[in-house]
């Protein structure tokens, strides 16, 4: 229970930080914001890596699938965001 409360505290505080930071992002950058948040939500990769590396073959299979999916998010998300943001920079 105590562990849950600790995690929940982090969860609630992070939501507040999220609201504070994201309300300041101008509409011009809302599409890169979405693809960028796709990229960072690929952080599931961290959990996927550990599952893949364990001895049980079932978790290795499940882990492998999630490593593939999360890597698409991380690499695809950061790269496409960078591509878009570079277009905003170009002329200025």
């Amino acid at each position, binding site marked *: 229970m105590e*562990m*849950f409360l600790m*995690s929940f505290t*982090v*969860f609630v505080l*992070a*939501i507040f*930080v999220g*609201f504070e*930071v*994201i309300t300041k992002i*101008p*509409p*011009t*950058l809302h599409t890169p*914001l*979405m*693809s*960028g*948040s*796709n990229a*960072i*939500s*690929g*952080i*599931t990769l*961290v*959990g*996927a*890596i*550990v599952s*893949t*590396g*364990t001895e*049980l073959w*079932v*978790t290795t299979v*499940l*882990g*492998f*699938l*999630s490593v*593939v999916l*999360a*890597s*698409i*998010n*991380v*690499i695809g*998300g*950061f790269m*496409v965001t*960078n591509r878009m*943001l570079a*277009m*905003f*920079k*170009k*002329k*200025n």
Partner: protein
Amino acid sequence: MYDFIINFSYLVASVLFIFGLKGLTHPRTAVRGNLLGACGMLLAVIVTLTDRHIVSYEYIILGMVVGGAIGAVLALRIEMTSMPEMVALLNGFGGAASIFVAGAALIEGSSLTDSPILQLTIATAASGLIGAVTFWGSLVAFGKLKGLISENAVLFSGQQVINSILAVLVLGLSIGVVLNPESFSLYWMLVGVASILGVLLVLPIGGADMPVVVALLNSYSGLAAAATGFVLSNNVLIITGSLVGASGIILTHIMCKAMNRSLTNVLFGVMGTSGEGGQTADEVYGGKVKSASPEEVALLFDAARRVAIIPGYGMAVSQAQHPVASLAALLESRGTTVEYGIHPVAGRMPGHMNVLMAEADVPYDSLKDMDDINQTIDQVDVVLVIGANDVVNPLARTDPSSPIAGMPIIDVDKAKIVVVIKRSLSPGFAGIPNPLFALDNSLMLFGDGKKMILDIITALKDS
């Protein structure tokens, strides 16, 4: 000590993600922000690879190579007009990754101890549920955006009843998973039923509302990651998931406000059928619509000192953004002030139109928000509306019975002259006629957006 280093690195990664998002508050700092986020991710992945539970690396490396390659190809190949599809797909992949990680954790947890703690099982059920709804909902949204599935609202009788039954079933299965964490089949049944629910929830939503749905699913994918963080008691997942969840919710809210609709109405209601009591197209347009030639429009531009361009998604469909940008550059070289008015739902996702204009080398400071452009629109000599319809329909202000009543619009009718480039007088998504086209100060330029702009440019250069 080892745990300390890992957790400390995760904290640093979380901080880098937050600074990365902060960088997005201005186009100047945005590229650096994105790089900071990528550094945070690299750090988190590297320290995780040192985890002592890992016995073999071949599948990890293989998975990262395969996924990374797919991601890189997607990121380099995707057309900017198709960004909503890409984000929809990535939302879905994030949800699916959470399903599998939580499922694996459930199996591991059960093999390590006899009774996994309650936090783990509740969070596992939540990950499976949210992940499955996100994945399948996103696939349907992708299909609708891509035109693989009917863009129209797909409705069938008893839909609400079926959804309610599925919701109850999902709830029951979730409780089942929490009480019997050793029964893995219950978890996969939960994922299965939640998948059907995900499909059925998005299927009835029309194409015009996809910006809201994609933003909402973006939020769900974050919540799925946060739930997985609870499963693994991993703070970096919880923090990142919450940030993404908050971001998606804010964007959903902005999109709903821009259409003057509540989220419930978008998700469960159908957009009002075209105005009973409202005027028909013939009554609105009859004999009052004036059409012009590109040469006449060029003369107007020639005399104008201040021009505003209002792009809609139709402009992107006819691939006219580059010609529009060249026209603006030509006018500016003759001393005319040119700015763009961007309605929040002008594109097919939040901020989409801004990206399309940026791709055509339009500087971001000439892209004005709806509120900004409305403040000065009465001083504009010529407004050029291209590919937009409902977002400039004055009925939103004047007719309380109209389906778009109260929707914030760009008040182009207050400018001195309005030029509308459009193929015909056909209605937009709302299905209602637009009295703007029949105003005294409006001129219609009928034809393909790209061709008309090029014709205007030629005429301007000749004059």
